[in-house]
């Protein structure tokens, strides 16, 4: 499988179709993989793919300081495919400038789990293929049980749970920086005229920050879990996002990242909408 991946990257770079391939490279141990940026066809052997490739590489597609003038090749797991679908929906880059190299692992995070190339080449084909692979799965399946536990709590218990979790927040913004959907040039937490969100890492500001970020991801988060994995203080941010994703699914029958051609529910309107929710 890895040879197919490298061959595809070699072709793309060799033909000049792309100026850069973003993929995974090996760290100091097999479990440690990290993003690598390949510019020459003879460097593609640095690419690896295994169940421990967990960073969401789509985060780099909106980074102006590293994107080349030409097209970019992206090693794309289902998480990247879905992220790219959302970013294209939100018109963050020219879709013709991103060439996806589809890959997937049967059980991410599990040693020895099977990995394979995806067949689709275009975003549309890959979206369909990913949707097929994930069929019948709650988008937040892995965290669904924990979300249910939280839903079973009283509001007071839930508040206490999140207050305790957020008390550890150091406001390093690793959650935001690891998230492909957090591409704002100036995040609301950095705006200080007025200061919408207190910047001190205290309960009030921490609550504001983490909850507002979850709201901003409504209908956009694809549940890759990059935020929770990036958090150095172990705050289960994926639970918040999973809960919001479920609300969106129940209200609008919509899941983010499966079709870049449909309008996103939080950024569209219908003139025949009854608007009963606005009082």
């Amino acid at each position, binding site marked *: 499988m890895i040879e197919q991946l490298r061959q595809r990257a070699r072709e793309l770079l060799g033909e000049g179709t792309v100026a850069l391939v973003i993929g995974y490279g090996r760290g100091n141990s097999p479990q*440690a993989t*990290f993003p690598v940026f390949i510019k020459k066809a003879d460097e593609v052997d640095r690419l690896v793919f295994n169940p421990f490739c967990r960073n969401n590489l789509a985060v780099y597609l909106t980074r102006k300081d*590293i994107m080349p003038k030409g097209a970019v090749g992206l090693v794309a797991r289902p998480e990247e495919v879905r992220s790219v679908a959302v970013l294209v929906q939100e018109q963050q880059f020219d879709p013709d400038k991103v060439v996806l190299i589809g890959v997937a692992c049967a059980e991410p995070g599990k040693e020895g789990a099977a990995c394979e190339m995806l067949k689709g080449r275009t975003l549309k084909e890959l979206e369909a293929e990913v949707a097929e692979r994930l069929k019948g799965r709650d988008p937040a399946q892995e965290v669904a049980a924990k979300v249910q536990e939280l839903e079973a709590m009283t509001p007071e218990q839930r508040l206490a749970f999140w207050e305790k979790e957020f008390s550890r927040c150091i406001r390093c913004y690793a959650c935001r920086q690891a998230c492909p959907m957090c591409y704002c040039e100036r995040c609301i937490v950095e705006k200080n005229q007025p200061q919408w969100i207190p910047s001190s890492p205290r309960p009030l500001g921490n609550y504001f920050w983490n909850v507002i970020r979850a709201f901003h991801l409504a209908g956009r988060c694809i549940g890759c879990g990059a935020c929770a994995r990036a958090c150095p203080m172990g705050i289960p941010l994926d639970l918040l996002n999973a809960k919001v994703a479920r609300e969106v699914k129940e209200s609008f029958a919509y899941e983010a990242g499966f079709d870049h051609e449909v309008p996103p529910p939080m950024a569209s309107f219908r003139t025949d909408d009854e608007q009963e929710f606005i009082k």
Partner: protein
Amino acid sequence: MAMLLAKKNLRALLRGAMDRKYRVVGPVREHGIVLFAEMSDPGALCLDELNTQNSIKEFFFPKTEKLFTYSLGKNDAAVADDFAPPRTVLIGGRACDARSLVALDRLFGWDYKDKFYFARREATCVITLACDRFDEACFCTSLGFGPRAAEGSDILLVPVEGDEYAVEAVTDKGRALIAEVKDVFTEGTPGAEKVAYPEKKFDLAAVKPWLERNFEHPIWKEEFLSCLGCGTCTYQCPMCHCFDIVDEGDIHGGARCKNWDSCQFALFTLHTSGHNPRPAQAARWRQRLRHKFVYYADKFGTEACVGCGRCIRNCPVCLSILDKLVLIGREAAAAPAQPAGAQP
């Protein structure tokens, strides 16, 4: 004869300190991570992990601190800035953590003596555990000290054969605490030390001259592309000390707060005009390395890095300062500086 502490008496030592009204801070496990936190029960002490998630700096230079509070009445205003930190025993740090305090003392005591920092330093007795293991992110020995260095500690506990620690009382503060809880210690001949030294990984002497010569170098553009620009490395670092000062409150009252800030944020150097002298993540990484190994060393005579490895273990994209220092060491060896007076 030397002073010994049986490992099983470690918690009795903490109990003794608590009984004498010390606040006790040590590593505890919370939601799957081990971090320094205030303890109410000595049984919560968790020494499973080599290093905690957060560093001990939080207990001297907290992530947020109220410098003063104010309140406005109808015809009057009041400002309050009383500050009295609790007497504290901080246990479970490593030699790298303790060394960071010595280096931070120089910074916070340089032109202005930071009263908050030094009040906490004076109120805190630091009990350090020498390391009996290390991992691939540890590099204290590459920085010219080691896992049983006593510098910065008030008491150093060195693991020895026989499930005991050899107790080194380093300062008067340490000796005073030992006198207060002396029942938990015994006298005896310590067994052989069980201290694990990580291998030396790079030549520290070559790093600073290389950084000084190579403000512009392909490394800066090539090696740091994956950096996401979060503040994890700087906030988990025991040495990073940049802060921001903000006023929080309203017409009735509020506080002036001193909060951690990070050179890895784009906003850190953004000018009001919109110009940013460090426009890309590569420039911010260069600053991080140069601050730690050039500017700080020039000003304070020591590096602003203690080799604890927290930035490496916690980086969301596995960017390792150690790998980069090793790379710089190799570059320096391949292209040594021209001797003074030599023709270029």
